[in-house]
C-alpha cells in the first residue's frame, strides 16, 4: 500500500482469529467477540439486502401516479417490511453489533468483552427474533407500518402482525444484552493507562448508545407485546372500543423509538470521530465536547418523544414543551459537526475512501439535522407532519448518516478485520456514487413533502409524478453505490493486498496488534502512555513525528 510510510512488503500473521480454529462449530460456538462481530456482519447484511430489495420495489412502483407494480395491499406490505427489516434488524444492530463488537475490546486493550458467552447469546437471540419476523414476512406479510399504530395493528390489520411483534420483542433482548456488555466492558476492562479521557470517541459514542439501549428497549418490547396481547386476547390497552387509548400506544412507542434514532446515529458519529482525525493526521478538535455531546444527545434524546405527536390532539402545553426540548437536542449535534469541520483545519488530509465517506456523512447529516428543526417547529409540523418531508428527513439521518458511517467504518477497519486492502480507486468511486445517488433519491422528497404528498401512499395525484420519477432515478444510482462495495470488499477478502498492522496509519490501540488480530487480541497487555489522536509524539507510526511542523503547536488559531 503506497500510504504505508515504511514501504515494506507485509505478510499476514501466522495465526490469527480467523484461522485459529476451523469448522462450522468453531464459528457457531465461538465466544470470540471478533468472530461474533462477523456473524452479525453476515446476518445484518442479509436483512440489509431484504430491506434494500423492498425499497427497490417501492421506488419502481411509485414511477407512475396510479402505481406501476403492485396492488395497494402489497405496496403497504412492502414499505412496512422495508421499515421493520431496516430499522430493527439492520440499522439498530449494524454499527454496535458489528464494528462495536469487533473494536471495543481492541480499542481499550482488552482480550474480549466482559461477558463473551452473553455476547454469543445476543447473536442467537437476534437470529431467533429475525426468524419470527421472516416467518411473518413470508406468511401473509405485514401491513401495519413499522410504527404498528393501534388500533390498526391490534384490531384491523389482516396481516401476520403477531409473529412480527413477537420477533421484535425477542430481538430487543439482543440489544439490551449488547448494551449491558459494552457498559460493563468499558468500566472494568480498560488497559493500564487507558483513562476515560483517553478513550477513543468511538467508545464514548457506544457508551452513550448502550445507555439508550438498556433504558429504552424494554419499553418498546413491552409496548409491542401489549399490542400483540390486545390482538390475540382482546385485552383493552389501546383499542377505545375496549376502553383503551390509541394515543397511549404512541407515547410508549415513541418513548423508545425516538431514542432509537440515537441508537442508530450515535455509533455512526463515533465512526466519523475516528476517521476524521486519522485522515487529517491531527488531534480531534474539542475532544471533550464531542464526547460530552454524545452523552447529552443520549440524555436529552429521552425527553423529546412526543414531537412525533403534535397533531394527535395532545395538549398544546405538552406540544410546546416537547418542541422546546427537541430544539435543545439539536445543539449537541451541531457541536459535533462544527468540531469535525474544525478538525480539518491545518490538517494533512488524505483522500482515501474512509475520509470521503466521513465527509459525505457530515454533509448529509447536516441536511438531515437541519431539516429536523423544521419538523420540531410546531407551526411547520402541522403542514409537513406525515408527508414525504418526514421520509426525506429521516432517510438523511438514517441512510445519509447511519449507513454512510457504517460503510465508512467498514472501509476504515476492513484491513484490520480481514488483514487485506480493497481497490483504492473503486472505493473512492463508490463513495462519490453513494453520495450523489443518495441526494438524487431523497432531496426531491423534501419538495414533495412541502407540496403536500402524504407518506405511505401507493398512488398519488399526477402533479407529484416528476419528483417521484427523479427520486426513483436517483435510487438506481444509490443501489450501485451499495453493490460496488459489496463486490470489491468481498473480492478483497481473498485477493486484496496484505495490509499490515497499521496501514493508514492510525493512533488507536486496535492498530498496535497484527491484522487480523490474534484470538487473544494482544500478545501482551498493552499500556497506554499517549493521548488520543496524537500523531506528534508517536515515533512508532513512522510519520514526520518530532519534525518541526509548519506552525507552532499551540491550540490557538
Amino acid at each position, binding site marked *: 500500500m503506497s*500510504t504505508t510510510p515504511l514501504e515494506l512488503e507485509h505478510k499476514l500473521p501466522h495465526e490469527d482469529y480467523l484461522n485459529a480454529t476451523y469448522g462450522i462449530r468453531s464459528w457457531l460456538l465461538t465466544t470470540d467477540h471478533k468472530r461474533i462481530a462477523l456473524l452479525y456482519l453476515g446476518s445484518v447484511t442479509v436483512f440489509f439486502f431484504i430491506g434494500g430489495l423492498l425499497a427497490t420495489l417501492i421506488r419502481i412502483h411509485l414511477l407512475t401516479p396510479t402505481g406501476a407494480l403492485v396492488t395497494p395491499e402489497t405496496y*403497504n406490505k412492502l414499505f412496512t417490511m422495508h421499515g421493520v427489516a431496516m430499522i430493527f434488524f439492520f440499522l439498530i444492530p449494524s454499527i454496535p453489533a458489528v464494528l462495536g463488537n469487533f473494536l471495543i475490546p481492541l480499542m481499550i486493550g482488552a482480550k474480549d468483552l466482559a461477558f463473551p458467552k452473553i455476547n454469543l447469546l445476543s447473536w442467537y437471540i437476534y437470529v431467533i427474533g429475525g426468524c419470527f419476523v421472516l416467518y411473518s414476512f413470508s406468511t401473509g406479510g405485514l*401491513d401495519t407500518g413499522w410504527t404498528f399504530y393501534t*388500533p*390498526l395493528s391490534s384490531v384491523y390489520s389482516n396481516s401476520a402482525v403477531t409473529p412480527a411483534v413477537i420477533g421484535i420483542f425477542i430481538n430487543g433482548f439482543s440489544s439490551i444484552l449488547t448494551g449491558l456488555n459494552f457498559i460493563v466492558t468499558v468500566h472494568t476492562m480498560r488497559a493500564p493507562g487507558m483513562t476515560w479521557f483517553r478513550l477513543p470517541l468511538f467508545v464514548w459514542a457506544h457508551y452513550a448508545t448502550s445507555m439508550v439501549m438498556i433504558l429504552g428497549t424494554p419499553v418498546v418490547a413491552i409496548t409491542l407485546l401489549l399490542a400483540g396481547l390486545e390482538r390475540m386476547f382482546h385485552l383493552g390497552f389501546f383499542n377505545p*372500543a375496549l376502553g383503551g*387509548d*390509541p*394515543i397511549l400506544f404512541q407515547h410508549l412507542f415513541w418513548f423508545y423509538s425516538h431514542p432509537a434514532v440515537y441508537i442508530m446515529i450515535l455509533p455512526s458519529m463515533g465512526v466519523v470521530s475516528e476517521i476524521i482525525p486519522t485522515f*487529517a*493526521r*491531527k*488531534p480531534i478538535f*474539542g475532544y*471533550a*465536547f464531542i464526547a460530552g455531546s454524545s452523552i447529552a444527545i443520549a440524555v436529552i434524546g429521552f425527553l423529546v418523544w412526543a414531537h412525533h405527536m*403534535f397533531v*394527535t*390532539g395532545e395538549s*398544546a402545553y405538552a*406540544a410546546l414543551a416537547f418542541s*422546546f426540548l427537541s*430544539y435543545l437536542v439539536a*445543539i449537541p449535534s*451541531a457541536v459535533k*459537526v462544527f468540531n469535525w469541520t*474544525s478538525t*480539518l483545519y*491545518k*490538517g*494533512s*488530509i*488524505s483522500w482515501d475512501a474512509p475520509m470521503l465517506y466521513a*465527509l459525505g456523512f457530515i*454533509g448529509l447529516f*447536516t*441536511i438531515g439535522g437541519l*431539516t429536523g428543526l423544521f419538523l*420540531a*417547529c*410546531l*407551526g*411547520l409540523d*402541522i*403542514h409537513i*407532519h*406525515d*408527508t414525504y418531508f418526514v421520509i426525506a428527513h429521516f432517510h438523511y439521518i438514517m441512510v445519509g448518516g447511519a449507513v454512510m458511517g457504517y460503510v465508512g467504518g467498514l472501509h476504515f477497519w476492513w484491513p484490520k478485520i480481514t488483514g487485506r486492502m480493497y481497490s483504492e480507486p473503486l472505493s473512492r468511486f463508490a463513495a462519490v456514487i453513494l453520495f450523489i445517488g443518495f441526494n438524487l433519491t431523497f432531496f426531491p422528497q423534501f419538495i414533495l413533502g*412541502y*407540496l403536500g404528498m*402524504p407518506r*405511505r401512499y401507493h*398512488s398519488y395525484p399526477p402533479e407529484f409524478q*416528476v419528483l417521484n420519477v427523479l427520486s426513483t432515478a436517483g435510487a438506481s444510482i444509490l443501489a450501485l453505490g451499495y453493490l460496488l462495495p459489496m463486490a470489491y470488499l468481498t473480492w478483497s477478502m481473498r485477493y486484496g493486498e496484505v495490509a499490515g498492522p497499521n496501514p493508514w496509519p492510525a493512533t488507536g490501540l486496535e492498530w498496535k496488534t497484527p491484522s487480523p488480530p490474534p484470538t487473544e487480541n494482544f500478545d501482551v497487555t498493552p499500556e497506554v502512555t499517549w493521548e488520543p489522536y496524537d*500523531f*506528534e509524539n508517536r515515533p512508532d507510526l513512522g*510519520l514526520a*513525528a518530532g519534525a518541526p*511542523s509548519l506552525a507552532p503547536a499551540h491550540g490557538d*488559531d
Partner: protein
Amino acid sequence: MQSQLPLYPEQASNFAPHVDGLMLFLISVSFFFAAAITIAIVFFFFKYHRRQPNAVGTPIHGDMRLEATWMIVPLILAMGMFSWGAIIYVDYRRAPEDTLDIYMVGKQWMWKAQQPNGQKEINELHVPVGRNVRLILASEDVIHDFYVPAFRVKMDVVPGHYNTMWFRPTKPGRYHFFCSQYCGTNHAIMGGWVTVMEPSDYAAWLSGSTGGDTNPVVVGEKLFAEKACNTCHLSSGLGRAPSLNGLFGAKVLLVDGSTVVADEAYIRESILQPNAKIVAGYQPLMPTFQGQLTEEQILALTAYIKSLQSQPVPAKGAGVAPSTGKK
C-alpha cells in the same frame, strides 16, 4: 399562477402565508449553515490535501471561545424558530369563537362531512370563503388524519377522541384533501376535494339541499326518544337525571366539587362512559351506550343537545353550575 414545477402548494387559508413565511426563515438559516459547513469542508479538503505521504497536521486541540460561540448562536436561532412556530401553533389549536362548525367522520376509507343544517357529503367539503371553519373530527375505526395542503393544516382523527381543527379559507377554488395518517389498505385513496365558495354561492348550495330527516338535530331528537334518554333527562329538571336545557357550553358542577365545560368531548364521554363524571346531586344510574351508537349517531345526539342550548334552564335539576359558583 404556479409554474409547471411548483415548490409550494397554493396559499388558500389564513395559515398558509404564515407557515410559508416561517418556512422561508428556516430555509434561510439552514441554507446559511449548510453552505458554511460545505464551503469549509471543500476548502479545507483541497487546501490541506496531503502532499507528502508522511506529513502530519498541525495539532490544535480546541478553542473554548469557538465552542461557546457555536453553542450559543445556534441556541438563539433555535429559540427564534421555536417561538415563531409556537405562535402559529397556539393560534391553530385555539379556534375563534364564531366558527362554522362542520362534523367530519373518517372511516376506512372515506370521509363523511355534515354541514350544520344536516347537508351530508362524502369525500367532498364545501366551505364559504372568509369564514372561520371548525371541523369536529371523529373516527369510526382506526386513526386517520384530515390534511389540506393548500391550507397548511392537518389534524389526526382518533377513535375514542374528538379532535378539532380550524382554518379560514381565503381563496375560492378546489383543493385536495388527504388522509395523512396511514390507515390500512386504501389509505392513499381516502381523500377528496375541499370546495371554497363565495358566501352567496355557499348559501345557494346549502339551500339546494334537503335538510329534513338528515338534519342532525331532527335525527338526534328521534334517537333521544328511541334510546329512552328522555325518560330520565326530563327538560323540567324533575327527572332522575339532569335536564339538558342550556347545558351545551355551560359549566357543570360534579360530585367531587370540580367543574367541567360541557363541550362535544364531555357529551360524548357522558354517553359512552356515564360514570366517568357524575353531576353533583345525581346517582350513577345511567347505562353505558358504548358499542350501541355509531359515531354519526353520537354526533346527532350532540347536535340535538346543542340545540337545547337556547331552551329555558329549569331552576332545579339542570346540573349546570351556578354562575356565581366556584371557578
